[in-house]
């Protein structure tokens, strides 16, 4: 932490601030043009017909060499020692049990390097809290435990999370085992049906983490850690949530010009987006929405929108509704 006189001096010293920023920019440029970044980029660029598994295999192979992690951390530490106002020029990736830096970004994968401290893990385990969940992310991840910290991981599985996922058929999560992780071990976790929990650790963990973009499930799903039953789910892709918010806004604005675009979104791959858009379409122009509602009730690939659309049609076609429309 930087306090007091040093901050005051730095804030009033514009040339020094510019020097810090220039040093950060130079570090970012050197990293992005350096051998490690180039090797990663070429490896992922060269994957033909990329699938989640192919990308995970490539990430695993790249993680076999971890010497670049030491070099990167040494480089950052040297800069921060020389200038306490030097901030690592990477996006930060922080949860309550992990502090990391996003060191490589590609359309197929993002790679972060970071630390989970034993103190963070202990605080998480011992803090008072209500019901807890085991989460399934919906996408593949590759984890390299550069320093495993003597961590004991438990492993969990659920039925595959697919585009046809329903709460009714979510089943229960099952604990499939536990084991201590070794330094240098690489784990591939398919978040479409697998997860893990860090049960305990004796010391800090240094973790490389590749998050794989292709073939992800539409949902991130939670199961209760005690009952093992389904708790809830959320969209994995923020674009889905943005579409929902924007179509609601368009309906509230009575934006008839948006109708064709909204009709196109009725073919969105996510079932919850399709139904949300259908509701907004009904609110905007029920007459225009009706043929699409009939189509959804008859042939939507997911049972939930089919059922909801059928319920609305039944309401429309009830005698009272017909009298009201007349």
């Amino acid at each position, binding site marked *: 932490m930087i306090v007091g006189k040093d901050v005051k001096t730095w804030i009033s010293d514009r040339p020094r601030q510019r020097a810090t920023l220039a040093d950060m920019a130079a570090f970012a440029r050197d990293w992005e043009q350096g051998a490690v970044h180039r090797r990663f980029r070429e490896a992922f660029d060269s994957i033909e017909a990329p699938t989640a598994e192919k990308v995970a295999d490539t990430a695993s192979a790249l993680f076999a060499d971890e010497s670049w992690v030491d070099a990167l951390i040494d480089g950052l530490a040297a800069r921060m020692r020389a200038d306490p106002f030097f901030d690592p020029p990477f*996006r930060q*990736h922080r*949860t309550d*049990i*992990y502090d990391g830096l996003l060191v490589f*970004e590609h359309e197929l994968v*993002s790679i972060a390097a970071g630390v*989970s401290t034993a103190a963070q*893990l202990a605080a*998480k*385990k011992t803090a008072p809290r*209500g019901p807890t*969940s*085991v*989460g*399934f*992310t919906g*996408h593949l*991840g590759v*984890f390299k435990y550069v320093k495993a910290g003597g961590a004991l991981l*438990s492993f969990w599985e659920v039925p595959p999370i697919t585009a046809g996922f*329903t*709460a*009714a058929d979510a089943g229960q999560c099952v604990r499939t085992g536990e084991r201590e992780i070794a330094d240098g071990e690489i784990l591939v976790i398919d978040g479409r049906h697998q*997860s*893990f*929990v*860090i049960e305990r650790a004796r010391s800090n963990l240094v973790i490389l*983490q590749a*998050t794989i*973009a292709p073939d992800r499930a539409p949902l*991130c799903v*939670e199961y*209760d850690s005690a009952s093992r039953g389904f708790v*809830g*789910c*959320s*969209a*994995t*892709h*923020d674009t*889905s*949530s943005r579409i929902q918010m924007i179509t609601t806004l368009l*309906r509230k604005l009575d934006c008839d010009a948006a109708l064709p675009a909204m009709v196109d979104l009725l073919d969105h791959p996510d*079932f*919850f987006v399709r*139904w949300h858009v259908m*509701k*907004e379409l*009904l*609110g905007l122009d*029920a*007459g225009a929405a*009706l043929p699409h509602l009939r189509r959804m009730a008859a042939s939507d690939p997911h049972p*939930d*929108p089919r*059922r*909801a659309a059928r319920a*609305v049609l039944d309401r429309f076609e009830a005698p009272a509704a017909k009298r*009201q429309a007349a």
Partner: protein
Amino acid sequence: MDNFRIMVEELPELETEVAVSGSVRQQEVGGGVCLFIALGGLIFSA
């Protein structure tokens, strides 16, 4: 049908309710999602 004024709030919800991206109902035990979710948010909003 053209005369209908549909109240969106009265239309049925799906049996499988899906929350907005990045949200959770309960605190996580500690592990996969805790390590994953912020990064997931980063890459998918990039």
